[in-house]
């Protein structure tokens, strides 16, 4: 046995290495696109070093110091900070409310293929199949509409609709992030380990019960993790939304920028940094608590 293996002759007919034309063509196309983009996007790093650029950068940076920590400015910020946090929390909550049901409908294995993502299923009547597939496509279309329009544009529209303040910001984050959450939820749900799902199905469980007993428990860590990440993004996004009048710290940032008060800008950016870092730490804690409950 041993010897037979060790003197195994080097095969004279090595399988030919396949050069797929397809792959070569795509590689060339990709390289050309990359080079073309470099030109067309006018990437000129040297512009930063030219006298004009250097002068502007210097005014901006020197203007930042010392940061404005005067009481009359800082006391203005309490409300916007709280508003930003509330805005991001409510926005994310709304995103879950929108994203979860749509995400479930946009999950192939829950709507039109078998629970194991197989095409051939035992129970397949054409009319039911079409209805299911239609639901799936509609849910996906809605999700992609929600997320392809940037939250900035949503906020712009909602400010016109419901007026200035944090509420249009909540709506904007809720809708655009709902689109993202739904898409990612459905991808997470389609990629859980199918073995347990198959076992549940053979006990006679319906799709909905398989969802509760197999899909959600297995996908939970990833679902929670991604949702928390989106909350972090929402804090940042709510800053931008302030620029179009959707409240929060962004509104103050916009005013300071427009007034060339760069020292106030630095204060605001620092506050933003602390807030994002705080949310990051908090979500890491939550994630840890959920993921590692078993290891005790």
């Amino acid at each position: 046995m041993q010897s037979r293996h060790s003197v195994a002759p080097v095969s004279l007919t090595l399988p030919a290495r396949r050069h797929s034309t397809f792959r070569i063509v795509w590689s060339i196309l990709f390289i050309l696109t990359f080079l073309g983009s470099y030109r067309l996007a006018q990437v000129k790093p040297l512009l930063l070093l030219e006298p004009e650029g250097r002068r502007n950068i210097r005014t901006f940076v020197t203007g930042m110091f010392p940061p404005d920590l005067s009481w009359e400015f800082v006391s203005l910020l309490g409300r916007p900070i709280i508003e930003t946090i509330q805005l991001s929390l409510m926005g994310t909550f709304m995103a879950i409310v929108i994203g979860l049901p749509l995400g479930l409908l946009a999950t192939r294995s829950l709507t039109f293929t078998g629970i194991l993502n197989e095409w051939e299923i035992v129970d397949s009547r054409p009319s039911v199949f079409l209805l299911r597939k239609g639901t799936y496509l509609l849910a996906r279309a809605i999700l992609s509409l929600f997320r392809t329009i940037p939250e900035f544009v949503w906020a712009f529209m909602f400010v016109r609709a419901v007026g200035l303040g944090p509420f249009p910001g909540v709506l904007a984050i809720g809708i655009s992030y709902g689109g993202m959450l739904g898409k990612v939820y459905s991808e997470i749900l389609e990629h859980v380990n199918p073995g347990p799902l198959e076992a549940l199905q053979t006990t006679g469980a319906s799709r909905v019960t398989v969802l509760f007993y197999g899909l959600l428990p297995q996908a939970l860590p990833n679902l929670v993790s991604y949702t928390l990440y989106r909350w972090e993004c929402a804090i940042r996004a709510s800053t931008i939304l302030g620029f179009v009048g959707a409240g929060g710290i962004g509104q103050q940032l916009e005013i300071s920028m427009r007034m060339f008060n760069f020292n106030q800008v630095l204060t605001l950016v620092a506050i933003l940094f602390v807030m994002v870092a705080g949310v990051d730490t908090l979500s890491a804690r939550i994630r840890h608590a959920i993921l590692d409950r078993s290891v005790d």
Partner: protein
Amino acid sequence: MYVLDGICKVFDGRTFAVRDLDLKIRRGERVALIGPSGAGKTTLFRILNLTIPPTSGTLLFDGLESRHFSGRRLRDVRRRIGTIYQQHNLVPRLQVVHNVLSGKLGSWSVWQAVQSLIRPAELDLALGALKQVGIANKLYERTETLSGGQQQRVAIARLLVQNPEVILADEPVSSVDPTLAAGIVRLLIDLSETHCKTLLMNLHSVDLAFAHFPRLIGLKNGTISFDLPAAAVTDEHLAALYAGSGTEAAEEEIVSRAEPSFGRSCQPHLTG
């Protein structure tokens, strides 16, 4: 219980996993399926438990044709067939009690099922099943913290709760160490004997098949190589079954059957 007539299963339009299979399994029978890996044993089991439909041929379960099953009726039939998998196929993050009670999902409504996740329903049933497999103390453990052998016992407890008429065990002991393996096979046999359940088992170990099953079916390349009472199966049958498959394990099986005096555990590699 089962009547299969000309069952074929083709994957990707060209690969035959199961080819032209005729098979009759009577109620209460105990049958072992043996054969080299890739023989189509698992595919056959997935057809038998109505997970995948056959490409052609007819499958009768208890006199009912499988093609007519759909929706509620399909689930009712699936409930009557219990499956044990090689990889246990439990939900790792759920507590043992929920994995065991998931045997009830075929009879519970969605609402009952969800409620049970919050406050386990029919706790006595789950506890009784776990006692029967000897791990009642693990009731509220997270399933992923259990060892492989314990998880297979949880899977059997789930089967007990499901209480099916047919038990399909797909290599139930391949990922369990050999001393536990015999115990688990024994447990399933006892179960089928005492409650008169039909038992079909895929086995990697020819020894276990001979020791516990009155009827052996050899499956090779998706077709039946032999289908005989255990006593009528000879070494020639086994040699033909595993010939050309080239798997060391299979060759070892044949050697160990040919020379039973050799200690199994310290079997030298003589097959070269």
